[in-house]
Structure formats: structure tokens, C-alpha cells
């Protein structure tokens, strides 16, 4: 290796570097920081010297008193020896100290790149052992480096502390910066014990006529004929291999000691452990007690000679940690965990489900289960939701958002529920009947004298209002069968919210337009004071139980195209969505009659149960309308009567037509039998 000095880089950079000086270097500068001038040292790297890159930037003291670059190299090696030792030790002893950010490229770079990347060889590449980045080790070393090459004593301490729930103690190292030997641990009430002591030191030779000097001179004689500069370099080349082997051994050895097992357990376990490992760095060696000394073993790595001293590394370690780990720790205080998974505090919906009397509970449960993905979950969850949301398959309820989310209704008029219960029930039933023509209504089955469908929560009037208006909307814009696909939960939810807000929309005229009824029916509808205008419906709180029945029912959504609505809902504002829904309903094609027939059986069943007096016998031309004994059945009866009346009316007309046709036919046939008429008769006509 040829070293050349004097040539400087195009841009000389002055940097502060704490220099390793001291009495060992006769011509070296004093300790502490000196301003250095980086000098480009061209090194023709032989293959025999793999530890250095081809073009090596070495920061050296440019003090005139400094002897030679070779001394600086030796000093650099000594410094790096200490750094490397500390790095290897702390990386495998201090949990959370070693970083996992490791890039092969950082350490396995080509010589050319290493030249341009740094002003000096990366520390981790020293001694051909590429290690993970360990900032704590570097930080510790930077502090130590100012101590003028004093012994580096690294104590690995096992700490046993009592588990305190409110204390979050990170498992990590305890760094001393004062080298006074005091440790923060002493202030804390916990037991600790030194399990390992690593000592890295550089012993300088006192006499110049040491063996090392002879060896150095010998190297110089062999290579370059006695030059002290080249002899030291040659000696360094020879000893560098020893450094490499020493650190290989250190790396393997440290993983065989008992403390490494504990370190590995602490590092890999995420549990809070009473045991933790810490370290203490000092420059003074505090002797152990005899008792501790007896329990410890010692291992000393073979020292490596330098031209002016000797580097040594030794360790004292406890042979076993079992007795320390098995010591009883402080008992944990008994605590009741209130926020366990599944508790009412963490899972309120589970709790709410167990309380059927709570009107809003099932809605919340169902809503949460269905829409846990929703970003609006938090906001929506606070809203008492329609129980119909519980079933995504619910054809009617979940798609009647007007019945849902009563809290979103903002009625400015504060008008009381206009329709009395009987009327409301009748209107509801009536509306449901007509609605059922095109779509199975969930409300018709639910309506019963005792427990009509209602909205959860105490805001039933508003809910009813919204519900009736929604029914009106649905009636006004019947949708085709093709549009009755099960909507996505997103769409349903959004529709529910938006439609509720839209609940105040009065659809009186539209009812007339969209409702497939005759004129008489329209008038009858108009006579109902509340159904077409304000649309309130009274619901009894007990209707919640009926709504619960729809959890498993398969009511399809009456809304036309949930896909379109969903997509539009996702992008537009709520009001725009409501408008889109209305538009959709208005432009929806009428439902076909066959749908009514498909959905009829359950309704018929319920109808019969509700109104046994109502007979759908087509032979009965007269509209049979039993007087409703209760107010809830009146609306349904009227609705059914109206529908039946219409049908019967038509039937009567057809019968009349039939009779007339038959009469005409009979008269014609009689005329033919009687023969042609006399001419006089014809003239008279």
C-alpha cells in the first residue's frame, strides 16, 4: 500500500474531529478537537488488504507536529477497534438499541461508490464485519472518544422491576454520560445486577525497545529496507487480519453467553417483563465483590499488538442467570379490566341487543354490523337507526329510509302529528296496500291493531311523518321489477340518510299522478287530511318488535336501481342524492301486476289476520267493508275497500257489458227467426 500525502482535494474541507492523541504519539497533537484538513490519500489497494477501499479518505491532523500518516492510520485503527467492540456488544445486549434498518447496499458497496459517498470509510465496514446500524453505540462511542483512550468498561446490567400498570418503561439501555459510575438506576427502587462486564483497553508501551518495535522494524526491513513508515504499514497489514478474526470471535462468542438468551427473549417478546437489560459505560473499573466474583467466569481475547501498544478485550460474565431470573418479583396488584374485548364498554351494541326494550338498540346493532366498514360509522352510529337496516335482505324496511333516522328530520313547522292513530293506521295500511301492488311492503304485514310498525326511539311522530312521506314517494313512483335488486349496504345507508332528510318533502300531487288509481280513489286520497300532505303516521313503540321480525325476512328494496343510487350517493351531497332518488322514482316505470301476485301470499295472510271481514271474493260485487272496530284497522280497511271497490266496479261494468252484449245478441237472433220486416214498417221507421 502506497500512501501519498500532500495532495488535497479540490475542495478542502475543514472538519472538527476529536483526535486520538496522547503520550503514545510523540509528535501527535494534544487531545480534544482539532481542526483538521482532510487530505486525499491515494491508496493503491492490494488485494491483500481488503479492509480498506481503493481510494481512502483519511482525516488526519495536519498539525505540523504530526509525524506521519501511518501513525494516524494506526490511531484510526485503534479508535475503530473500540468502536467496533462497543457496537458488537451493545447490538446484542441492549434491546431496542440495534436498529433494524439495514441495507446491504450501505455496506456492500463498490469501492468507487465508497469513495464518493463518504469522507472516510464507513465505520461498519471496518474489520470486514458489516453490522447493522446502531446509533446508540455510535453515540456512546462519541462520548467515550473524548476521554483520551481510557479503558472502555461496558457493564451489562440485569434489572428487575415491579410491574406497575401505569408505568410504561421502555426496555432499553441506560447511558451514562458523565463517566462517574453513577447510574440512573440507583435512584429507582428496583434491583439490578451486573451480569457482564466487558473491558476494552489500549495499553501503551512504556519503553520503545519493546518487542513490537522489533517486529515493526522487521516488517520494514522485509518490505522497504528499513523505513519506519513502511514498516508500520506492513505491520498494520499483518495485524489487520488479526483484528478481523478477533471480531469474528467476539461476534460468535457474545451469542453463546447466557445473557444473550435473555436479550433475545426480551427483544422478541412484546410483553411487559419484570426483567430488562441495560448497560452502563464508564472508564473506571469497579471491582466485584468476592461473592459475585465467584459466580463469574472470565474470557480474554488474545490481545493484538500495535506498534506502540496493545489492544485487549476481555469479559467477565455470570455463568448462569437462572437464579436471578427465578427470584420472586413484586406481586402484581389486582386490577379489574373493564375494557376487555366483548365488554359493554367496548361493544355497546352487544349490550344493546340484550335490551329489547331499548328502542334504538336493535337498529344500532344491525347498523353497526352491516356498516362497520363505513367511514361515517362513528357519526352514523350515534343516530338511532331504522331497525330495517338490520337485514340487508329486507325488501321494504331497509329501503324505506323515511322510517329510519328520525333524528335527521328537521321539521321547522313543529306541527304535531296530524293523523290520529286510527287514521294513520288506515292510511298506512292503505298506502301499503297500494304499494304492495308493486312491491311487497314490509309495513303492511307489520300493521296490526295492537302493534303497528313504528320507528325506534321516542321520536316516533317525526319518524312516522317521514315514513308516510316515504311511502307516498314510493307510491308515486313505482318501480319496475328490474330495479328491485338488493342494494348494497352503502347505497342503502346513504339512501336512508338522504331520504330521511328528504322526508319533509311533500308529495301530495305526485301521489295523485303516480298512484294507479281511479279518480274516485284520488278523491278519497285527497280526503285524507294527513296522508297526502303532511304524511304523518303514528306508530306505537311496540312496533319495534314487529320490525324485529324483518331481520330475517327477505323484503326487497323498493328503490329502483341501487347501483346508480349508490354511486351517485357516494359522490354527491345528501340533498343531491335525495333529489336523485326522487327523480329516479318519478321516472321509474310502473310495476307490473305479476309482482303483486308474487308478493301477495304473506300480505294476504296478514290481511286476513288483520281484517277477517274483508273478503276479496270477486264474485261479491258489493264492497264489503267491515266497520273497523279499532282505529288502526280503519285505514287498512278503507284501503282494501277502495281497491276492492275499484275491482268490483270494473267487474260490474264488465257484467253489464256482458249482459248488454248478450241481450243484443239475443235480440238479433230473434229478429232473424222472425224474418224480414214488412215494407210498411220500414217506411214508418
Amino acid at each position, binding site marked *: 500500500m502506497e500512501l501519498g500525502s500532500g495532495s488535497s482535494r479540490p475542495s478542502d474541507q475543514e472538519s472538527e474531529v476529536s483526535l486520538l492523541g496522547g503520550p503514545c504519539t510523540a509528535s501527535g497533537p494534544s487531545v480534544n478537537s482539532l481542526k483538521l484538513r482532510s487530505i486525499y490519500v491515494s491508496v493503491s489497494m492490494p488485494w491483500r488488504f481488503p479492509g480498506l477501499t481503493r481510494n481512502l479518505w483519511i482525516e488526519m491532523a495536519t498539525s505540523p507536529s504530526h509525524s506521519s500518516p501511518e501513525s494516524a492510520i494506526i490511531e484510526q485503527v485503534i479508535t475503530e477497534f473500540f468502536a467496533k467492540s462497543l457496537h458488537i456488544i451493545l447490538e446484542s445486549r441492549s434491546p431496542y438499541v440495534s436498529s433494524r434498518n439495514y441495507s446491504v447496499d450501505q455496506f456492500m458497496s463498490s469501492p468507487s461508490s465508497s469513495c464518493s459517498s463518504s469522507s472516510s470509510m464507513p465505520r461498519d465496514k471496518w474489520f470486514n464485519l*458489516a453490522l447493522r446500524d446502531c446509533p446508540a453505540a455510535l453515540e456512546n462511542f462519541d462520548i467515550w472518544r473524548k476521554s483520551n483512550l481510557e479503558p472502555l468498561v461496558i457493564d451489562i446490567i440485569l434489572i428487575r422491576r415491579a410491574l406497575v400498570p401505569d408505568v410504561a418503561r421502555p426496555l432499553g439501555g441506560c447511558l451514562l454520560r458523565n463517566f462517574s459510575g453513577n447510574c440512573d438506576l440507583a435512584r429507582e427502587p428496583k434491583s439490578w445486577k451486573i451480569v457482564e462486564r466487558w473491558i476494552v483497553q489500549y495499553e501503551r508501551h512504556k519503553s520503545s525497545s519493546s518487542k513490537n518495535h522489533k517486529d515493526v522494524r522487521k516488517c520494514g526491513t522485509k518490505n522497504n529496507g528499513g523505513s519506519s513508515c513502511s514498516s508500520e504499514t506492513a505491520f498494520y497489514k499483518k495485524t489487520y487480519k488479526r483484528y478481523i478474526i478477533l471480531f*469474528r470471535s467476539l461476534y*460468535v462468542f457474545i451469542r453463546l453467553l447466557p445473557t444473550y438468551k435473555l436479550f433475545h427473549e426480551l427483544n422478541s417478546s412484546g410483553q411487559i417483563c419484570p426483567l430488562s437489560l441495560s448497560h452502563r459505560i464508564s472508564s473506571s473499573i469497579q471491582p466485584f465483590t468476592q461473592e459475585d466474583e465467584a459466580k463469574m467466569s472470565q474470557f480474554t481475547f488474545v490481545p493484538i499488538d500495535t506498534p506502540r501498544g496493545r489492544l485487549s478485550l476481555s469479559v467477565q460474565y455470570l455463568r448462569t442467570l437462572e437464579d436471578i431470573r427465578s427470584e420472586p418479583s413484586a406481586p402484581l396488584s389486582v386490577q379489574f379490566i373493564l375494557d376487555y374485548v366483548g365488554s359493554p364498554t367496548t361493544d355497546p351494541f352487544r349490550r344493546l341487543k340484550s335490551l329489547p326494550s331499548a328502542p334504538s338498540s336493535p337498529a344500532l346493532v344491525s347498523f353497526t354490523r352491516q356498516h362497520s366498514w363505513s367511514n361515517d360509522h362513528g357519526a352514523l352510529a350515534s343516530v338511532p337507526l331504522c331497525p330495517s337496516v338490520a337485514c340487508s335482505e329486507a325488501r321494504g324496511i331497509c329501503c324505506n329510509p323515511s322510517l329510519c333516522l328520525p333524528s335527521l328530520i328537521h321539521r321547522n313547522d313543529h306541527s304535531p302529528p296530524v293523523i290520529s292513530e286510527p287514521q294513520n293506521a288506515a292510511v298506512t295500511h292503505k298506502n301499503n296496500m297500494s304499494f304492495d301492488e308493486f312491491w311487497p311492503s314490509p309495513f303492511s304485514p307489520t300493521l296490526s291493531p295492537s302493534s303497528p310498525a313504528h320507528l325506534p326511539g321516542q321520536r316516533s311522530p317525526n319518524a312516522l311523518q317521514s315514513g308516510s312521506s316515504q311511502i307516498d314517494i314510493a307510491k308515486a313512483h313505482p318501480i319496475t321489477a328490474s330495479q328491485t335488486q338488493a342494494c348494497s349496504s352503502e347505497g342503502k345507508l346513504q339512501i336512508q340518510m338522504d331520504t330521511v332528510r328528504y322526508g319533509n318533502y311533500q308529495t301530495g300531487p305526485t301521489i295523485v299522478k303516480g298512484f294507479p288509481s281511479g279518480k274516485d280513489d284520488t278523491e278519497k286520497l285527497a280526503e285524507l287530511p294527513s296522508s297526502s300532505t303532511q304524511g304523518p303516521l303514528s306508530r306505537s313503540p311496540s312496533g319495534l318488535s314487529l320490525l324485529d321480525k324483518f331481520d330475517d325476512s327477505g323484503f326487497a328494496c323498493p328503490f329502483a336501481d341501487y347501483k346508480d343510487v349508490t354511486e351517485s350517493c357516494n359522490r354527491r351531497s345528501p340533498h343531491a342524492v335525495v333529489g336523485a332518488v326522487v327523480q329516479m322514482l318519478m321516472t321509474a316505470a310502473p310495476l307490473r301486476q305479476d309482482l303483486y301476485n308474487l308478493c301477495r301470499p304473506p300480505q294476504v295472510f296478514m290481511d286476513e289476520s288483520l281484517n277477517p271481514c274483508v273478503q276479496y271474493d270477486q264474485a261479491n260485487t258489493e264492497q264489503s267493508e267491515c266497520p273497523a272496530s279499532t282505529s288502526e284497522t280503519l285505514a287498512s280497511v278503507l284501503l282494501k275497500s277502495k281497491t276492492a271497490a275499484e275491482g268490483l266496479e270494473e267487474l260490474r261494468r264488465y257484467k253489464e257489458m256482458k249482459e248488454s252484449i248478450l241481450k243484443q245478441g239475443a235480440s238479433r237472433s230473434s229478429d232473424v227467426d222472425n224474418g224480414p220486416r214488412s215494407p210498411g214498417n220500414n217506411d214508418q221507421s
Partner: protein
Amino acid sequence: MNCETCQLKELVLEPPEIREVLRCILHTILFHRALGLVRPKDVECELFDITYVQCEDHELEKKIDEKINQFIGWVEKHPNRKSQVCISFYEVKNKHATWFGNKIERFYWEQWYINLHIISPKPHGKSHNTKAHVVTGENAFEGSNSRCAALESSLREVLFQIIKFVNEKKDHIPPLQNSEIVSFPYEISTPR
């Protein structure tokens, strides 16, 4: 140049443990002799509570596994025998060109002998007595555990022996010939 020889402590083990033991020992030796720039890789033994170190070199791992397979094959044919696996480091010198070709001489400068005593697991005697069988099984389980613990302790001693050897003897190591990870040519010998 002297050839340093290291006879490692004999290990008593069963066939299923051969692979793990040999991997541990061979990789530890080679990690101390692969003096190129390496990125150490910690490996946890599957059978023992020991962490050893590998050079992250796929070629090296492949060669070691091949030799271990060879040895396991030999053990299957020769059960219950003491055997050795030898890893040698050499220098290639004096390539003499002869009429028959280039003669390459190898000068071994270090040899490691891994002494193994492979024992076959004893089959449990058939017993119609369930209770006796259970007791026999328990005893066998405890015996197996103690044997494994002893093997782990012995393996740890072997590793310490390797570290001590490489630390004490360094003068015989020849100069580095290249910048590759595995700095010196080597060969792993198994019984035939």
C-alpha cells in the same frame, strides 16, 4: 508452514440431530475463516437453544448442505459408529506443468476434525401392560431430554473450543489472497 490441527470434542448424537450439529459447527469454523467483507447472519438452532453465525453466502451454505447430506447418507449405511467430518484449509502452490497435466499441490495449513458418535435411538420394548408401557415411555422421554441437554452443553463447549482455537492460533494463517468472502480454499471430507 505448519498445519494446525484442532480435534474437537466428541459429540454423541442421534441421526436426526446430525444436520443441525454439523451446520452449527461448520458454519462457525468457516465464519472465522471467511475473512472477506461479510454480513453476519444469526441462526437459531432448531433443536438446541444455541445461536450460531453464518456468512451470508449462498454458495457456502449450499456446499455445506451437500456435504452434510453425504455424511447422513453414509451414516444410514453405517449406523451406530463413530465417525469424523474434516474441514481443511489449504493453499494452492507450485503448479507444476507435467506431461500429464498441471499438477496442483495443496498445502494444508489448518484442519478441523469434528468427532461424532452416532447412536441409533433404542426402540421401546413392547409391553402389554399399559401402565408399565406408560412408565417406560416416561422414562424414555426423560432420558431423551437429558441426552439432548447433554448434547446441547457439549455443542456449546465445542463452539467455545473453536473460538479459543482461532483466537490463540493466528500466525499460521496465510495472507489474504483475494477480497472474496471465503478467503481461503477449503474442503470438507466425510467418510466413504
